[in-house]
């Protein structure tokens, strides 16, 4: 048993000495005072990150970089590995392989991490018997954050006049408290896991605005969600994962342009003839299960005029646009872990 103690103490001392005298020490000092001078400043860099629970890979060779000055949406179906990735970034879960760096260092090596990285993982992670102020005071004390900052973040999150114990808070108020805790150290990097959950419309608007403001101040903001429509409104950049693998790492605008394709549904008296006619004019035509045509590549009025000129009766002509959610489902379709028993796909693209 003394051996265990000796190893434990020795390990701690060695690590402290390494931290004080090693190459990392100077970088740490520089990073603290002049973040913009250091490579990796205010960035989250993930390289080939993998987390296995037994044979199952929750996160599987994930690599991406989150940059400052914009809101990055971290999207994926439930169980895609978003929360696990965030926990690995914070050093809470140990990766099976690969690295996750913040401001160019492993999170565990940051000296006062809350001053560099603020995170909201689970709004329910509070002791119900404590007041909001006491909850924040305990977090602030751990990283030598001045107590005056507590009132600032309470005001910022609209909890300034809140009294009483956290156990009596609504989910929305707990989310606000979680955001307050994340902002406590005035960090350059913010990571929020599903922050809009439980918020009312006013709260959702508030957090959207807040994230945009924080990004506009030059901070790095990574926000996870399983709601594509929410991210389309909030994020400038999207990192989409499914089954722990990277599916897309793209600006939101480009993603929307590429995936929200529209087509034209046409029912006609002589569909085969119309199909050939439209294809000879450059359209792509798919035949749906009930014989209707799904047309892309031609404007609706041209489709109508061509049919009229050929004296083909048109029974229906509908412009269909894929919703964002459908686009999201299409891109993550093969990567959904928990699929509903039977999904009737009415729309083929």
């Amino acid at each position: 048993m003394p051996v265990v103690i000796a190893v434990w103490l020795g390990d701690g001392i060695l690590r402290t000495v390494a931290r004080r005298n090693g190459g990392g020490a100077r970088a740490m000092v520089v990073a603290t005072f002049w973040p913009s001078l250091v490579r990796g400043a205010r960035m989250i860099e993930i390289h080939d990150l993998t987390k296995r629970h037994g044979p199952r890979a929750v996160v599987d060779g994930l690599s991406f970089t989150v940059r400052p000055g914009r809101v990055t949406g971290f999207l994926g179906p439930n169980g895609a590995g978003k929360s696990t990735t965030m926990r690995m970034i914070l050093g809470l879960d140990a990766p099976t392989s690969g690295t996750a760096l913040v401001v160019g260092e492993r999170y565990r090596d940051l000296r006062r991490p809350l001053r560099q990285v603020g995170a909201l993982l689970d709004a329910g992670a509070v002791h119900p018997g404590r007041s909001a102020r006491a909850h924040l005071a305990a977090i602030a004390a751990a990283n030598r954050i001045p107590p005056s900052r507590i009132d600032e973040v309470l005001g910022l999150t609209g909890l300034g006049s809140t009294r009483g114990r956290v156990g009596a808070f609504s989910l929305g108020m707990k989310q606000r408290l979680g955001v307050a805790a994340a902002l406590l150290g005035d960090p350059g990097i913010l990571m929020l896991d599903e922050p809009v959950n439980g918020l009312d419309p006013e709260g959702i608007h508030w957090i959207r605005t807040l994230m945009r403001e924080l990004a506009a101040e030059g901070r790095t903001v990574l926000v996870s969600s399983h709601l594509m429509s929410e991210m389309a409104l909030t994020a400038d950049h999207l990192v989409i994962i499914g089954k722990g693998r990277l599916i897309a790492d793209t600006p939101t605008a480009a993603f929307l342009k590429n995936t929200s394709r529209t087509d034209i549904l046409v029912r006609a008296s002589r569909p085969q003839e119309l199909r050939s006619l439209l294809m000879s004019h450059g359209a792509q035509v798919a035949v749906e299960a009930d014989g209707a045509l799904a047309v892309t590549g031609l404007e609706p009025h041209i489709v109508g005029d061509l049919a009229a000129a050929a004296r083909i009766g048109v029974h229906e002509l509908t412009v269909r646009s894929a919703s964002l959610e459908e686009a999201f489902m299409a891109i993550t379709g093969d990567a959904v872990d928990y699929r509903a028993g039977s999904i009737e796909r009415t729309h083929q693209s």
Partner: protein
Amino acid sequence: MSILTAPTTRGAVASEWIKLRTVRSTAFTVLVAVLAAVLVGTLDDTSAANNYASWTPAQQRSFDPVRYGFSGGFYVAVLAVGTLGVLSASSEYGTGLIRTTFAATPRRRQVLIAKSLVTGGLSLAVGLGVAFATFFLGQNSLSARHLDVGLGDPHVLRAVVGAGTFLAVFALVGLAVGVVVRRSAGGVALLFGLFFIAPMVFGALSDTLGGWTLQTAFESLSTTITLPPDAARPSAGQAVAVCAVHLVVAFAGAALLIERRDA
């Protein structure tokens, strides 16, 4: 030991102290511990003073004027601070707050050290306060029949300090158990089992093993008479060793697992 003086450890200690004093259960636990130990201890000594004359000579010979006050009520205090120790770790795992704690102090052994200093410090203060209060009030009752002893008498100071310090030992073992088990109910059950069940099991195996449990260690520490009624009772020195072994084993496990496991 640089880990003890690191600024981040000092921050963690400040944080843990805020956490400990801003939940009602702490004040409630301390109140229960103080009231149970002092009131019951004093009542026991008062009844001993009143009934001493009617006891058999054997009973009178085995009467320990210090140990007698550290009986039923003091066990309540022991279990109360033990529960406090377990909860200071397990309640954070239960709510998920532990992730916030580790995010603020990523070198988790600093968190373990901070929790030990705060929980251990509080329970030591409470333990010594309760032990001395129980002792002085009890001796006051016993003095009516001139059965009382003073702190200067043989073994008396050791017994009072030992009884008080045992509360801190038990709270710290509870803390380590809380870190290892990570569940409040399971942690408290394991700690109480260690106190109540282990002596029965080990005692049934052999007297020597029975002497290496926390409950017998507490009894030995708080005893002043040299003729133990129970042959299996270890010496005060061995009792200290028993406490040390429990602390070392519990903390080695906690220090290992707190770093290894995903939070």
